[in-house]
């Protein structure tokens, strides 16, 4: 029996700006994939996972999508070697349930564990340990890729198609399974500490010093304060503890946003108050503390559907990276423009990337500093602000993260990703996304 493509209006990205109709297939077994991926007169398809990408890289409006979350079986896991091979729909959350009790962890992880392995590869995700571990793709040892021409490929590092597929946004073929090398951990607990900085210019020295001593670092930024307190924030840093406690996280979120927040809930004042409280809480915690990986690495996963906080019009996330030579001035300039705009950003995160060679042709991470923040969708006003930010990023020689983007121009994308021309040659003509149609020109 073949798996059908069924009409659905329920497919949205994490930012929820785009409302579109899709035809969705939900396979559950590997043997169902060849029929689904086969080229069709119904137009290009797109494999999708847990839809944590914010913009439109995981959307194919009025087209077909293959929801891979039903393919979530572990194929092999070496408890001694730490090598895990699993179907592409396995979530990082589920992988951790198996890895952690055996003394292993994901080589690196984004700020949510509700991401599939296929998505982690297709977006070459990064985490708080990028300066030490590189991106997720750096630890991937093998990929099974199915193309719409009916061919199947087992890819390994060094193979050009491998490097097109890592960070390839699901456009090079359907990732059937992923094999990666996990990292040894002596405990599920982290020894952490926070350092406060009163102005963003102080961040860079504090971060550079922290990288020499800590595996995980990241900073929260208050985007609303300007002047002498521009980009004040807190840098959190942590190393794995040595206490042998290998208890994984609890699978269910404790809280959930049941409905969309009403508009007034996100007024500038409310956000300011929120950020200020957060800041005070952090300040009260002086000295080192012990934290399980769950709250430290996945603070927002506690609240299911937190994206509803931004109301029913949804939101954009803006994430850029600037190279070391321009990062100090560039980040300061970005924060000035954001503070002046008064367009509240709930979360702003600052993090340095290390000097690892990119794992994929379209990998986002490069040496430098990355800034990520949310903007509630207020239509033209928000788009204009982000276009202003684009100009700063462009002149600083930086680029934007496709997984977060839902609106950049083809020119902006091309300027940020010099390997784009090479990548085009590996794109499967039977696959496409809203993002790709916009930026591929």
């Amino acid at each position, binding site marked *: 029996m073949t*798996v*059908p493509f*069924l009409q659905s209006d*329920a497919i949205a990205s994490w930012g929820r700006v785009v409302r579109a109709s899709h035809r969705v297939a*939900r396979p*559950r*077994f*590997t*043997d169902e994939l060849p029929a689904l991926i086969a080229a069709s007169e119904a137009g290009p398809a797109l494999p999708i996972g847990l839809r944590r990408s914010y913009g439109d890289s995981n959307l194919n409006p009025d087209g077909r999508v293959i929801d891979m979350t*039903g393919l979530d*079986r*572990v*194929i*092999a*896991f070496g408890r001694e070697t730490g090598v*895990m091979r699993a179907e592409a729909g396995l979530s990082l959350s589920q992988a951790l*349930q*198996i890895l952690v*009790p055996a003394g292993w962890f994901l080589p690196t992880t984004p700020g949510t564990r509700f991401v599939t392995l296929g998505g982690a590869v297709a977006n070459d995700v990064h985490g708080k340990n990028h300066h030490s571990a590189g991106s997720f793709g750096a630890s991937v040892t093998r990929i099974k890729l199915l193309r719409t021409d009916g061919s199947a490929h087992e890819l390994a590092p060094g193979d050009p198609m491998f490097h097109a597929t890592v960070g390839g946004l699901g456009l090079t073929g359907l990732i059937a399974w992923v094999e990666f090398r996990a990292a040894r951990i002596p405990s599920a607990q982290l020894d952490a500490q926070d350092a406060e900085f009163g102005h963003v210019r102080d961040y860079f020295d504090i971060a550079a010093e922290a990288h020499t001593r800590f595996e995980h670092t990241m900073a929260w930024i208050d985007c609303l304060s300007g002047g002498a307190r521009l980009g004040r924030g807190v840098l959190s840093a942590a190393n794995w503890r040595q206490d042998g406690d290998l208890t994984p996280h609890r699978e269910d979120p404790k809280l959930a946003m049941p409905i969309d927040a009403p508009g007034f809930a996100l007024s500038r004042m409310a956000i300011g108050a929120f950020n200020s409280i957060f800041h005070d809480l952090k300040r009260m915690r002086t000295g080192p503390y012990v934290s399980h990986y769950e709250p430290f690495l996945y603070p927002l996963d506690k609240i299911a559907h937190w994206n509803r906080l931004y109301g029913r019009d949804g939101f954009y996330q803006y994430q850029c990276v600037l190279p070391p030579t321009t990062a100090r001035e560039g980040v300061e300039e970005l924060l000035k423009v954001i503070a002046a705009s008064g367009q509240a950003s709930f979360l702003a995160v600052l993090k340095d990337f290390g000097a690892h060679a990119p794992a994929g042709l379209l990998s986002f991470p490069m040496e430098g500093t990355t800034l990520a923040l949310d903007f509630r969708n207020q239509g033209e006003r928000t788009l204009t602000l982000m276009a202003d930010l684009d100009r700063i990023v462009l002149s600083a020689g930086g680029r934007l993260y496709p997984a977060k983007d839902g609106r950049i121009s083809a020119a902006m994308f091309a300027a940020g990703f010099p390997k784009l021309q090479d990548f085009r040659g590996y794109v499967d003509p039977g696959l496409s996304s809203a993002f790709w149609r916009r930026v591929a020109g």
Partner: protein
Amino acid sequence: MQAQAAAAVTASNRVVVLGALSAIAISAARIYAKEGAALLLVARNQQRLDALAADLKARGAVLVETAAVDLEAEAMSAPVHMAQWKQRLGGLDHVHLVYGYLGTQSEATASPAELARITSSNYASAVQWCEAAANIFRKQKSGSLVAVSSVAGDRGRQSNYAYGAAKGGLALYVQGLAHSLAPTGARAVAVKPGFVDTPMTDGMKKGGPMWASPDQIGRILRRAADKGGPIQYAPGKWRLVMMIVRSVPAFVFHKTKV
């Protein structure tokens, strides 16, 4: 090798899953795997069973055996199969019957073959497996049978009375088994899920508070193996909903399209 692995299961956690490839069965099996159980998975497709077995081993199951069997076609040999499976697991503590076939009422109305398939899959073959499991439990004075019925079995409705009658009959049968097993200490439970978001229900309009995930139902199935009465609604709120549905008088009910 096999006997050694089976001997390693010290807890009373040797489980046979009938219809192991259904989304609900996989959720329940993963809970058992995490507990370090020994599992024997039964479904038709050997290749898919192998993939699931590898997954359950990675998740902590001490032993995963498979049997590629057509549960409808082989129902008359249920006692033989069940005895063999018990042997392969080194004992038998829980049997989960999860397989079933929804079909459509309009096809069942038009085609005797479709009607036969619905009643055979959901009732006639199912009770053979239930009886085979119950006979083992009765003899060993322990063990639990958990069969998946449906809220559709609580009242005949024009939209799915073939399926509903078969699932309702199964629940009655299991209720009777529970009664007969009670003096021995063994148990039988019919679990009645409401709407579950699985491939079986693809094509229906989904979402909203009355829809449950396979994981939710899987947890209820696992818990039902250890405790609770012979008829369990999944989730529990369906008990109240169905009490109301059952009590609507026919002259009102007949005006509805449900």
